[in-house]
């Protein structure tokens, strides 16, 4: 043969002489089936190959997104004491070059970061900040700080005038009145020693437009200030500035420089700040005690320069810096590092870990069904080839030769399909990964040859049932034992996976809360066991169904035999016969169940996101009113309430980090002062959980103000006595009488009734407005006040669009669709596999006088029972597993909720799974019937089909 000799030299040393004409002939005869298997391999390879690189890309995006969202929490701060300025005569010496010291300190800190961390951070901002002072006029608590800012881009510190002389390194400003602060002493007195205890030293500061307006001050004016000890400070306004870029991260170190900040120094307080220049910084130093000014360098992470890979090293470096920090009590100039960046990165890591694990759960499901479909396809192919294989055996082909021929064919098909899938994956996403593809390719390579060789071996074996009764029983027992052992193995694996999932959760151990940041790399899940729990559970459940099915169908057959419909028995009898074959039903039920699982996961996460957005915003819309406009909040609330489509509006005073003493510990909960009954009505108008305990807040009895509390860590409990600390006013005693509703995403919350609190001597100034109702978003947006508007729709949209979330939700959909498609393919393959016997029965019935249209009903009667079982049991099984396992999948990390979202059943989508399967039967039956009708009975009978 030319083939063997020329084109395939391998044949010379290959011990098996392959029969090339057979190989090619077989492949050509079954090209359709082989192409089908190839298509399954290619599609699943594309999916399984694309997900890991997509996940990696998404992980990078997620890290950047997370760092961006973390805002100030991700900043790296380093602090060091300033050198002492004691003079020889017991006084203090003015240090005119203090700004340069600050720059030196900033450079030293920058050096210590090390190259890796430094590359991920923006140029630093050095700050010097004074203690908080009180503004002495006015009744409400207003505080003031002096702050010096110096950006680390090589220039000196202090405010930079736009376009003007550019010697300062502070954020750019425009002077709209006066000018930058100047030294308070003439050049000659620069190094003079001043007595430690003297009259207040003058300091010049600049105010922002907003601060100046709120304080009603002009350049040259003196700000009436004193410190905690009651010492007067002489602070003069040199000028009024407008920031060129108010989003410049430099301002983050002292936001009060830009505009008044409410609540920073206790409930009802407002903080202002004045900007120092390099010239006035030495004066500020002398105006305060030796160690009163804090010198801090702030590094803000640059999200675009942090990747998933570099995040590891960054987190470790940050942890190391913090661990080696000098103690805060140390009096030397050693650096003390402070940052939440490691925590931020750990959270993102946990999120990415959770998303990878969830993705691996979905992928495992798809791969399981794909492998089952490939087994089914191989089985079908071997059935079609059985005569040819038998003939080959009878011609004398050796089994190993046949096996090698089949293996060659399946390997070529599977590998080229997988290569096509991977190439496609590489074309549409940034890469392709082959690890997840392996099981599918392996199944595609091995299944066909294994089944084929077995069939060929069986063809030549004596296939008569043993005559001996005991021998027959033995043979039957062996088969049953083998099956039972297989089922037991799957069941044990499923239980083990379930237990592993429940005990360890889906998160890799290192990512679990409290785990180390430096964990394993980005993998899909922590070992295959927990991630395969749903797939194994579904397979185990299906095996149970398979055990019950024959008994169930037997009952149906009994009924059909007695049924008034004379034809029912034929379909049912066929169904009983086909139900003995496990693979088709296994494919149908597992695909329906896992598709339902994916849909339930998607719906649960989607609802969780919606719920999370409700909780974050607290209503359809929220207004965070700036302190300056707070007085008009009640009027604003009334205006919004009057707008069309607004159902409930509540104004409240919300203060973060209120100082509350509970069990002699100071905690910083979010304090919400609100009209309790209105708040309850608002909650009732939203899907947020009702808080009946709010009704208890109005009750005044024994002096204490009733309060509701909630706390993530149990620091605040019902029944506790709390002291609400106030600056310059008596403490208010609270009694926790119940559990507070969640207010935003704060961990600790204290809710009190506004009227009750006012009666106890603390009036409130509302700074937050919640509005619920379909028109709320529009009404709030149209209110045009000086306030931050937070719309629930926006929050929800942003969360849905977050890289990990959108990626996983998409994967859930794609998996569900792929699973359903595989299930329908399995249905078609199963129908094709049972077609010869069904057609034979129908032909025989036709010779008995069965009408062609009745033949269709009998075919439907045969195909329908297993599909009905799958259409009903599949979604039920999927939902059951979701019920058992979703809790362990840490969906909260995806939805941004405090707790895992409650299970949501997507009824109509589950119904769609059911309908799709039933419709598929309604399509398969007429197609098959049309195919059947193309041939005359005489031909079918002659061809051996009768």
């Amino acid at each position, binding site marked *: 043969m030319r083939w063997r000799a020329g084109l395939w030299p391998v044949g010379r040393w290959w011990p098996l002489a392959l029969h090339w004409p057979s190989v090619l002939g077989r492949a050509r005869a079954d090209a359709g089936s082989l192409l089908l298997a190839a298509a399954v391999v290619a599609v699943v390879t594309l999916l399984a190959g694309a997900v890991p690189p997509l996940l990696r890309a998404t992980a990078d995006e997620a890290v950047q997104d997370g760092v961006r969202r973390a805002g100030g929490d991700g900043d790296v701060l380093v602090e060091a004491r300033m050198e002492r300025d004691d003079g020889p005569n017991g006084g203090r010496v003015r240090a005119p070059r203090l700004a340069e010291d600050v720059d030196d300190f900033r450079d030293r800190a920058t050096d210590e970061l090390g190259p890796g961390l430094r590359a991920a951070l923006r140029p630093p901002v050095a700050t010097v900040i004074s203690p908080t002072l009180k503004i002495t006029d006015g009744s409400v608590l207003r505080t003031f700080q002096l702050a010096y800012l110096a950006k680390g881009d090589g220039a000196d510190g202090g405010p930079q005038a736009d376009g003007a002389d550019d010697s300062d390194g502070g954020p750019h400003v425009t002077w709209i009145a006066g000018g930058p602060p100047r030294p308070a002493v003439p050049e000659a007195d620069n190094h003079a020693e001043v007595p430690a205890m003297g009259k207040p030293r003058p300091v010049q500061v600049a105010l922002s437009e907003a601060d100046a307006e709120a304080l009603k001050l002009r350049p040259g004016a003196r700000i009436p200030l004193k410190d905690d000890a009651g010492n007067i400070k002489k602070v003069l306004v040199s000028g009024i500035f407008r920031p060129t870029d108010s989003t410049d991260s430099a301002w983050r170190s002292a936001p009060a420089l830009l505009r008044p900040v409410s609540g920073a120094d206790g409930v009802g307080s407002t903080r202002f700040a004045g900007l120092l220049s390099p010239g006035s910084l030495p004066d500020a130093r002398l105006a305060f005690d030796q160690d009163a000014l804090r010198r801090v360098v702030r590094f803000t992470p640059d999200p675009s320069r942090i990747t998933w890979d570099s995040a590891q090293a960054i987190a470790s470096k940050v942890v190391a810096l913090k661990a080696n920090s000098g103690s805060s009590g140390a009096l030397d100039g050693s650096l003390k590092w402070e940052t939440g960046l490691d925590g931020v990165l750990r959270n993102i890591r946990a999120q990415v870990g959770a998303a990878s694990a969830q993705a691996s759960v979905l992928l495992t499901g798809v791969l399981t069904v794909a492998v089952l479909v490939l087994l089914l396809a191989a089985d079908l192919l071997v059935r079609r080839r059985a005569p040819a294989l038998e003939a080959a055996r009878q011609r004398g082909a050796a089994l190993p030769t046949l096996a090698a021929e089949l293996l060659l064919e399946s390997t070529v098909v599977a590998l080229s399909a997988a290569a096509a899938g991977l190439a496609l994956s590489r074309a549409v996403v940034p890469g392709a990964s082959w690890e997840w593809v392996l099981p599918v390719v392996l199944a595609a390579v091995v299944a066909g040859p294994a089944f084929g060789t077995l069939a060929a071996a069986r063809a030549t074996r004596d296939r008569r049932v043993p005559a001996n009764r005991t021998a027959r029983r033995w043979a039957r027992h062996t088969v049953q034992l083998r099956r039972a052992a297989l089922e037991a193995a799957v069941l044990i694996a499923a239980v083990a996976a379930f237990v592993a999932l429940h005990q360890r959760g889906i998160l890799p151990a290192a990512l679990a809360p409290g785990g180390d940041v430096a964990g394993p790399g980005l993998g899909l899940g922590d070992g295959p066991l927990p991630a395969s729990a749903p797939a194994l559970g579904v397979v185990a459940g299906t095996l149970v169904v398979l055990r019950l099915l024959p008994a169930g169908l037997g009952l149906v057959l009994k009924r059909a*035999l*007695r049924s008034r419909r*004379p*034809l029912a*028995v*034929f379909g049912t*009898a*066929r169904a*009983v*016969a086909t139900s003995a074959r496990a693979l088709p039903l296994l494919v149908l039920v597992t695909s329906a169940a896992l598709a339902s699982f994916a849909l339930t996961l998607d719906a649960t996460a989607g609802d969780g996101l919606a719920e999370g957005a409700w909780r974050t915003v607290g209503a359809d819309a929220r207004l965070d009113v700036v302190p300056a406009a707070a007085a008009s909040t009640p009027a604003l609330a009334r205006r919004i309430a009057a707008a069309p489509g607004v159902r409930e509006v509540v104004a409240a005073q919300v203060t973060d980090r209120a100082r509350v003493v509970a069990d002699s510990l100071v905690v910083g909960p979010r304090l919400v002062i609100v009209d309790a009954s209105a708040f309850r009505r608002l909650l009732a108008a939203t899907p947020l959980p009702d808080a009946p305990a709010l009704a208890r807040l109005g009750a005044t009895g024994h002096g204490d103000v009733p309060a509701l509390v909630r706390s993530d860590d149990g620091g605040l409990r019902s029944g506790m006595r709390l002291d609400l600390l106030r600056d310059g006013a008596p403490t208010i005693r609270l009694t926790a009488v119940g559990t507070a509703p969640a207010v935003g995403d704060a961990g600790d919350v204290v809710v009190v009734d506004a009227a009750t609190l006012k009666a106890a001597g603390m009036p409130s100034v509302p700074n937050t407005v919640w509005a619920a109702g379909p028109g709320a978003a529009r009404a709030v947006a149209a209110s045009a006040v000086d306030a931050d508007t937070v719309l629930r729709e926006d929050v929800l949209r942003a969360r849905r669009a977050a890289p990990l979330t959108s990626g996983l939700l998409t994967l859930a959909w794609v998996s569900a669709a792929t699973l359903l498609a595989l299930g329908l393919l399995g249905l078609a393959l199963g129908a094709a596999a049972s077609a010869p*016997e069904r057609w034979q*029965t129908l032909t*025989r*019935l*036709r*010779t*008995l*006088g*069965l*009408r*062609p249209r009745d033949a269709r009903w009998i075919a439907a009667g045969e195909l329908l029972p297993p599909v009905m079982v799958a259409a009903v049991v599949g979604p039920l099984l999927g939902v059951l597993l979701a019920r058992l396992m979703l809790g362990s999948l840490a969906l909260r990390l995806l939805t941004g909720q405090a707790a895992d979202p409650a299970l949501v059943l997507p009824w109509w989508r589950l119904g769609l799974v059911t309908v799709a399967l039933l419709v598929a039967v309604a399509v398969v039956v007429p197609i098959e019937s049309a195919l059947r009708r193309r041939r*005359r*009975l*005489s031909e079918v*009978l*002659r061809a*051996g089909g*009768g």
Partner: protein
Amino acid sequence: MSADPADRPLLTVRGVHRRFGSGPTAVHALRDVSFDLAAGTMVALIGRSGSGKTTLLNVIGGLDRPDSGTVLVDGADVTALDEDGLSRLRREKVSYVFQTFGLIPVLSAAENVGAPLRLARLPAAERERRVELLLELVGLADHAQQRPGELSGGQQQRVAIARALAASPRLLIADEPTGQLDAETGLSVMALLRGVVESEGVTALVSTHDPTMLALADRVIQINDGRLDEREAS
């Protein structure tokens, strides 16, 4: 029709042609075949392999359509019937016995025999009675609940004969019913057919290779290369 139904032949075949393929490779399986069959007779159809026996039986039973010619079974023109008409013909007038038995493997012997009665929508009680009777007739009353796979070849063919008789057809067509049976079993199956022709009053057209079977036939029709070549039974 003016003729008395009793005199009328049960089967009339006139000028039947059946050709497979076209052009030079066409096979003329039947060429101008015409004959009549009287009711209540057992007729053997013999001929060499490939002579056209199966083709003729298929055309008569409506499983195949001739290119020209007509076939009348009990007055009904088989060649003019549509699919539904043919189905009714098979339910009511013509039944088949095949060389490969043609039983439905997933049904028991009794259910196989009852199948034509189900198709004819006979009430269940009547059906069961008739099935019992027929199984008795073919001597398989004890095997009623066995599946075809659990019966011997001869037993299977007996079930097939019982099934063919179930709906009381006028014409029973059997295409080499003993082809897969050993000589002794074959003879007993033929004897059974002979017996039911007598007891049930059906007309049987039986193709066979086996000359020893000819003794049981009332009449023998021989076919040679698609052409009829009749000779009377000895």
